């Protein structure tokens, strides 16, 4: 046995320390090391994908989808695909739901996944006291029964988007026996799912390390290890990718995106995602005047804003539906027509000399160039006879005001809808009883109300399209653009962009 003197031991320690310090950083080489390091833009507050504010954060779904599986899967093009359910549907009169559960799946602790897990997850999500923010969807079915691998349940109230939500926010299957045994706190300490990756190490606000699930029903993923570094600061994320400390990053300024993707060894992709930018209008003066609303819509040169402020990344929109959404209707267009805007305003007695005046609220830094966009819009409005005063506020204030219907005449916001159903975009934004709507009038509510429970799918979508057209004709909201998500990555990798905006490790592979 070798013995060390105290001096030798201290020398060895000092040597190890200096080596550690001077070693600096070894730039990660994903393709060789089998480790994928993602400089992620948000922190992970909780591992439970079904409750709390993080459950409805679209970005965090990238992590949840790595550890857990959803009832129903969704491809990067938003198309639904089998998940833990292999088939699903309603009976003919839509009074029952049925689901076929995948067989041969195991939880990360090796225990068997069963239909009971699905039932327990659905029932738990439907309970008010669990705090599931989408409880209003899950509570529309109950009384589940298991027969073999088929589950049937009763429809309490027909909800056309019931199965769509199974691939969206809070639509995750959690382990019944394990969760019951360890409880909420135990689950937060050691979460398990059936997903492609298993939680290996976690340091709150710092990093999450995942290991590949060798028993994943979809096959072993491309990387043995995935590290999510939580780097909310934009400058630091740019530095992470530029210095080689991370393999992939996202949501960086478009200027940096354009610069970095040209660098040797780096590539970039900026694909339109399901997030849209918009200006809420409330039914208060002077927005009660249709001429003012339409003029405010027509005076905005959205293409110019996208080109000049967002460096060409994004698509101009005339409705709250993006092209990937089911009720998107390309024929509904509100043209950029400042002359027509002037005429409309003139009809109401306004002109550049005698402008209509109101305030517009906006966040600053919440979305790329949000404040700058509103500044540009105010400039465009001024030319036609609209004088808007900008009020900057925090996003928390926006939520508070919107819930109290006190947003004021106009307010910038963004909206995400990864299931592409009109209920989740036009519906929640425009239907009066929704706590998230700004415009609240009977004409819109009368059109939208019957559509929520419409059983004939073709009729339902046609109804939404008609309502969307009407809303555009009335100018009840000002749609602006569909955002593009910038992703920069090492050229040794291949990325499949996800329209939902969730940068899932399973969509990254070695080039």
């Amino acid at each position, binding site marked *: 046995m070798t013995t060390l003197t105290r001096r030798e031991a201290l020398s*060895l*320690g000092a040597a*190890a*320390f200096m*080596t*550690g*310090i001077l*070693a*600096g*950083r070894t*730039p990660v080489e994903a393709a060789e090391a089998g*480790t994928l*390091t993602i*400089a992620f833009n948000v922190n992970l*507050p*909780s591992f*439970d994908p079904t409750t*709390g*504010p993080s459950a*409805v954060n679209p970005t965090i779904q990238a992590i949840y989808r790595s550890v857990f599986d959803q009832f129903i899967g969704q491809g990067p093009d938003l198309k639904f695909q089998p998940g833990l359910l292999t088939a699903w549907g309603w009976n003919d009169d839509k009074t029952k739901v049925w689901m076929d559960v995948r067989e041969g799946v195991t939880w990360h602790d090796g225990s068997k996944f069963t239909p009971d897990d699905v039932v327990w997850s659905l029932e738990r999500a439907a309970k*008010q006291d669990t705090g599931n*923010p*989408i*409880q*209003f969807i899950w509570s529309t079915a109950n009384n589940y029964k298991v027969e073999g691998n088929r589950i049937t349940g009763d429809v309490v109230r027909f909800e056309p988007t019931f199965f769509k939500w199974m691939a969206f926010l809070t639509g995750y299957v959690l382990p019944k026996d394990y969760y019951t045994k360890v409880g909420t*706190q135990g689950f*937060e300490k050691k979460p398990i799912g059936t997903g492609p990756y298993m939680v290996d190490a976690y*340091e*709150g*606000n*710092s*990093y999450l*390390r995942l290991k590949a699930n060798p028993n994943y029903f979809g096959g072993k993923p491309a990387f043995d*290890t995935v*590290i999510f*570094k*939580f*780097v*909310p*600061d934009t*400058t*630091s994320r740019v*530095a*992470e990718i*530029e*210095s*080689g*400390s991370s393999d992939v990053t996202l949501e960086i300024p478009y200027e940096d995106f354009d610069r970095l993707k040209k660098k040797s060894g780096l590539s970039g992709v900026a694909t339109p995602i399901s997030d849209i930018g918009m200006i809420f209008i409330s039914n208060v003066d002077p927005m009660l005047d249709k001429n003012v609303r339409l003029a405010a819509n027509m005076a905005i040169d959205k293409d110019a804003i996208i080109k000049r402020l967002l460096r060409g990344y994004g698509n101009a929109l005339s409705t709250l539906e993006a092209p990937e959404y089911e009720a998107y209707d390309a024929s509904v267009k509100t043209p950029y027509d400042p002359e027509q805007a002037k005429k409309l305003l003139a009809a109401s007695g306004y002109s550049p000399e005698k402008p209509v005046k109101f305030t517009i609220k906006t966040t600053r830094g919440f979305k790329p160039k949000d404040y700058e966009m509103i500044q540009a819009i105010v400039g465009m409005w001024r030319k036609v006879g609209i004088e808007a005063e900008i009020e900057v*506020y*925090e*996003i*928390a204030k926006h*939520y*508070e005001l*919107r*819930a*109290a219907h006190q947003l004021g005449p106009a307010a910038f916001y963004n909206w995400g809808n990864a299931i592409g159903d009109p209920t989740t975009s036009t519906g929640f934004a425009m239907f009066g009883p*929704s*706590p*998230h709507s700004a415009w609240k009038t009977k004409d819109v509510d009368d059109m939208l109300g019957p559509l929520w429970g419409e059983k004939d799918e073709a009729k339902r979508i046609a109804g939404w399209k008609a309502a969307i057209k009407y809303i555009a004709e009335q100018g009840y909201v000002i749609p602006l653009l569909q955002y593009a998500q910038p992703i920069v990555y090492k050229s040794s990798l291949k990325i499949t962009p996800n329209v939902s905006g969730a940068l899932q490790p399973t969509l990254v592979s070695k080039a």
Partner: protein
Amino acid sequence: MIAVSILNRLIMAAITLFGVAVIVFVLLRVVPGDPIAMMISPGASPADIAALRAHYGLDASLSTQFWLWLKAVLTGDFGTSISLKRDVLSLLGERLPATLELAFAALVLAVLLGGAVAIVGTLARRTVFEPVIDSFNGLFLAVPDFVWALALVLVLGVLFPLFPLSGRIDPSIDAQFATPFYLLESLLTLRFAIFADICAHMVMPVLALGLPLAAIIARVLKAALSEAMVQDYILLAKLKGMSELRLVLQEALRNAVGPTIALTGVQFTFLIGGTVIVERIFAYPGIGNMAIDAVINRDLPLIQGLVLVFGAIFILVNLAVDLLVAAFNPRLAHG
């Protein structure tokens, strides 16, 4: 007598902390941003919203809310974080050590660097080097910590990538810790490689926090040293043939250090405040980084807990400074 003095100060500290608690509690309920509004689901009815408000105790009057909260805090129950769904006290227990290690490392750097610059500056009095040192010191003084952080990211993170950019420890390291004091624990358990990795992760945030404080210490200490160097006892020692270096270190420093300690104490509390931005930039998992998320999410229980911790640190540091100054100058002990 000293015990009575300390007791008096502790009572005053408790009263101050209570004042902080009242102000924060009221302010948080007056400033914009309703946590419930952020939690409302698209399908929520007014009844659902009312139930949510009742669940978090936000439907009661302000005084009732405060009384309930205060009673709970006095029994060690700081409530449950709305966004993290965890006990606030345990969250603080996990994250505070990271911030304390960072802040103390920055303080050590600032004292050593600031002290060295002050001594060198004093020795260089009336030479061509004095204005150079003063100018550099002025520059370091003028640049705030978050600008240092961004500059360090660019220089030491990107241009000369010597140190890790984010986090507290390399995510690929499998290190088990029995305590949340990673730096201290890895040192005491002689895990030098891990200790080195943690140090490497601290280099940039420590520099960002420590450099402005070092400049302040340097300026104050140099002024105090310069003042001491013209005192009679120094001139007498000089006549006896004592070298300039020994004069500064052995004679002048003793008298100059008192006001510097007082100032350093005050500045240290600012440094703790500075961790909020610096931790965010370097994705360092301390209470500063957590505070930003808490504010964004309007996580009232967590913000209240964090502010109480910041307040307690402020009060305790000031108490410690008073005692230290008194130890250096007993005449002030009863003052």
